C-alpha cells in the first residue's frame, strides 16, 4: 500500500516535472525547428487585409526563423476564419488576422450566431490602422465637416452618405458621427469601395466614407476632396488633410488590423510573437511594401491592443441595434 502510493507520488512528481519542462521548453524553443506557424486570414487572397498579412508573414519568418504560412479562409465577413482560429490548439502555431470592428460585430450581433466570444482570443498585437475618411466630390459645396453636418441637420435624412458595406467600419463611423453631432444622413450601403466611389464620382451620392487606402488614387487625380481623417493624427499618405479631431469632433474610425491567438496560448509565446511582429514591422522591407499599398503601420503590443479591443466592444455593442435599421 505504502509502496504503491509512494510509486504513485513519484509518478505524479515525474509527470509534473516533465510537464513543467515541456511548458518552459515550449516557450523557450518556440517556434520549434521545421514547424510552421499557420496564419489564418478570414478574407480572400488579393484583398488589402490579405496583402498586409502576407507582408507581415514574410517579415516574421525572417525574425522567427520559422515558416509562417498564410491560410485564406474567406467567408461570412471573416467569421469562418475566426471560428477556425478560436478552435485551434493554443500553442502559438496557429494565429489569425482580426479586423476591428468587424470581428466585434460578429461577436455582438446575436443574428450572426458566432461560435466564439470576446475572450475566446488572446490579442497579440496591432499591425495596421487603415483610418477612415469622409470624402466629397471635388466640386461639392461642402468645404468642411461643419458644412456637411449643418446641412444634414437642416435637411435630416436627405444627404446621402455611402458605406462600403453593412456593419463595416465605415458604417459604424457614420453611426458614431450621427450620435456625436445629432445630424441624420441617408446611409446607403454599397458592396466594396469600387461601386461606392463610382457613385460619388457620378454624383449619385453626396458623401463617401471609406478607408485611406481606397481613396488615394482619386485624391491624387483631384476628383475628390477629403473633409477629414478619422484619426488622432494626420495620415502620412495625405499630408495636409485635417483630422476630425482638429475640427472638433473626436471620431476614431477605420479598419484596425491586428493578430490574435486562441485564448490559453502561454503568455511567453504571445510575447515572443508580439516582439517578432514589432521587429518585422521596423524593417525597411516591410515598411516600404506596406507604404506602397497605402497601409499605415500602427504597432501596438498585446496590452495596448487589448485596450482597443475592449473599447470597440463597448462601442459596437451600443451601435448594433442602430446598424440593423430596426
Amino acid at each position, binding site marked *: 500500500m505504502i509502496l504503491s502510493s509512494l510509486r504513485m507520488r513519484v509518478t505524479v512528481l515525474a509527470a509534473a516535472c516533465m510537464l513543467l519542462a515541456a511548458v518552459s521548453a515550449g516557450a523557450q524553443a518556440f517556434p520549434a525547428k521545421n514547424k510552421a506557424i499557420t496564419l489564418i486570414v478570414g478574407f480572400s487572397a488579393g484583398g*488589402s487585409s490579405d496583402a498586409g498579412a502576407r507582408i507581415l508573414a514574410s517579415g516574421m519568418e525572417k525574425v522567427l526563423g520559422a515558416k509562417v504560412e498564410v491560410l485564406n479562409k474567406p467567408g*461570412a465577413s471573416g467569421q469562418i476564419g475566426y471560428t477556425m482560429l478560436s478552435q485551434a490548439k493554443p500553442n502559438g502555431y496557429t494565429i489569425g488576422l482580426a479586423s476591428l470592428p468587424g470581428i466585434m460585430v460578429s461577436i455582438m450581433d446575436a443574428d*450572426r450566431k458566432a461560435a466564439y466570444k470576446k475572450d475566446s482570443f488572446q490579442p497579440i498585437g496591432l499591425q495596421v490602422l487603415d483610418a477612415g475618411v469622409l470624402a466629397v466630390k471635388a466640386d461639392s459645396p461642402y468645404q468642411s465637416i461643419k458644412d456637411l453636418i449643418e446641412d444634414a441637420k437642416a435637411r435630416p435624412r436627405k444627404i446621402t452618405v455611402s458605406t462600403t458595406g453593412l456593419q463595416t467600419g465605415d458604417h459604424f463611423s457614420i453611426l458614431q458621427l450621427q450620435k456625436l453631432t445629432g445630424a441624420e444622413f441617408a446611409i446607403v450601403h454599397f458592396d466594396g469601395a469600387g461601386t461606392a466611389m463610382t457613385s460619388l464620382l*457620378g454624383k449619385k451620392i453626396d458623401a463617401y466614407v471609406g478607408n485611406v487606402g481606397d481613396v488615394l488614387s482619386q485624391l491624387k487625380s483631384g476628383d475628390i476632396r477629403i473633409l477629414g481623417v478619422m484619426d488622432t493624427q494626420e495620415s502620412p499618405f495625405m499630408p495636409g488633410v485635417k483630422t476630425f479631431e482638429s475640427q472638433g469632433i473626436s471620431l476614431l474610425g477605420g479598419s484596425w488590423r491586428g493578430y490574435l491567438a486562441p485564448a490559453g496560448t502561454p503568455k511567453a509565446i504571445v510575447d515572443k510573437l508580439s516582439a517578432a511582429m514589432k521587429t518585422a514591422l521596423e524593417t525597411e522591407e516591410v515598411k516600404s511594401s506596406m507604404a506602397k499599398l497605402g497601409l499605415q503601420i500602427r504597432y501596438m503590443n498585446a496590452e495596448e491592443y487589448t485596450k482597443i479591443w475592449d473599447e470597440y466592444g463597448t462601442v459596437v455593442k451600443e451601435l448594433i441595434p442602430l446598424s440593423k*435599421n430596426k
Partner: protein
Amino acid sequence: MSVLQDLLMGFSVALSPGNLLYAFLGSAFGTLIGVLPGIGPAAGTALLIPLTARLPPTGAIIMLTAIFYGTQYGGTITSILLNVPGEAASAITCIDGHKMALKGRAGAALSIAAIGSFIGGLFATIALVFLAGPLTKVALEFGPVEFFALMVLGISLLMGLAGKSMVKALMMGILGLILAMVGMDPVRGAPRFTFGRMELMDGLNFVPVIMGLFGLADILENAEESLSSTVSAKVGSLMPSKQEIKDSVGPIARGSVLGTVLGLIPGMTGSMASFLSYSTEKKASKHPEKFGQGAIEGVAGPETANNAHANGALIPLFTLGIPASPTVAVLMGAFLMNGLIPGPFLFREQPELVWGVIASFFVGNVILLVLNLPLVGVWVKMLKIPYSILFAVILAFMVIGAYGAESSIFDVFIMLLFGILGYALKKFDFPLAPMILTLILGPTMERSLRRSMEMSQGDFSILFASPLAATLLVISLVVLVSSALKVFPGTGKGKSDSGSVGK
C-alpha cells in the same frame, strides 16, 4: 494623332524581347487557370502575383494582365469539350458549345470561340485607346437606380431563354431568384435561408453551383448510358463551315460592344456579360429554336462578350483608378505593390508603362489566338480518352476545383447537391439557363433596388427620376410585352413564328 504616337511608343515597349516573353508566359498561365475548373480568374491571378514579384514593374503588369484576360480563353475549352465550365464567365457556353461537340463540331466551336475572344479583346482595347475619356463618363452615369433598371432589363430577357415550356422557364427563373436570396440581408443584416450555417452567410458560392448544375449533372446523365466512346471519333474539323462563320459575324460584333460597355460599369461581372449576350443572341436570332441544340451563335456571342468585358473592365481601372470587378481589384493590388497608383495621372507620370501595357493587350491577344488555335487539336484529343476514365478524372478535378476556390469542404457538398438537382431537372426537361441568369442578376438587382430606396428613404419615384433608368425600364417593358405576345398568340396579333416558342 498623339494617341497613335503614344501607342507606337507603347508597342516599342511591349515588343521588347523581355516583355514579349512576359506576355507569352502570362497568356499561357492564364489559359491554364481558365482550363482548370474552380480556380477562377481572381484567385488564379492572386496566386500568381508572387511569380511576378521580381520582375520590373512594366513586365510584372504585362504578365498579370495577360494572365487575367488569358483565363477567359481557357475557360471556354472545358465548357465546350467536357460541359464543365472552366470559370463562371464561360458557363453559358456549355449549353450550345457542348452540344456542338456532341455533334462533332468541337473543333469549329473552339475556333469560333478563340476568334470571337480575339476580336472582343481587340475591340475593347481599341475602345480603351481612343474612347477611354468619353466612355468613362458613361460609366459614371450608372448609380444604384440605373443599375437596378439595367438588371430589370437583363431579367426581362429571361423569357427569351425559355425552351419548350414558358411555365417551366419561369419556374426556373423564380428558383434562381430564391437561391439568390440566400445569405445576409444587405440592408437589415439578418441571415436569410442560411439554416444556421455561416458558410451560407455570403450567399451561395456561384462556382460550385454551376459546376454541379452543368458538369456533374451531365456526367451523371452520361453515366447512365452505355459508356461507349462514340463521341470521341467525331472530333470534326477545326475550320468552321461557311455557314458557321456567317452566323457568327453578328454575335461577335454585338458581343464586342456589349462586353466592352458592361466592362465599363463597376459591379458587372464577366458572367453577366456572357449571359446577357446569350439572351440577346437568342432574342435577335431568326431561329431561336436552334439555341440549346448546338447553335454557333450561342458560343460566338458569349465568348466574345466575356473577353471584351475582361479588357473593357481595365478601362475604369486605367482612367478612374476604380476596380470594376473582383479580379480587377486583385490586379489593382498588383499595381500598388509595384508602386503604381492607377488613375488618369498614371498616363502623365508613367506614359511608357501605361502605353506599353496597353500595347501588350494587342500583343497578348494575338499570342492567345496563336497559342489557342493550334492547341485546339490537343484539347480535342482529351475527348479520345475513354469516358469511364475521363469521367473519373473530371470528377476529381471538379472536387479539387470546388474545394480550391475557397478551401472549403462545404463548397464540395454544394457542388454535389446541385449536381443531383441539375440531373433531376434535366430528366424532367427544365431549362437551366433562366435559373442561372436570375441567380447571377438577382443579388445585384436586389441590392441596387434597396440602395435606391436608401437614397430616397423609401420613395419609389426615384426609379423614374433618372432619364437613363426610365429609358431602360421602358425597354424592359417592351421586351416583356413582345415576348408575352409571342408566347400567348391568342392574346394579341401573334406573329407567324410564335408557335415555335409557345408550343
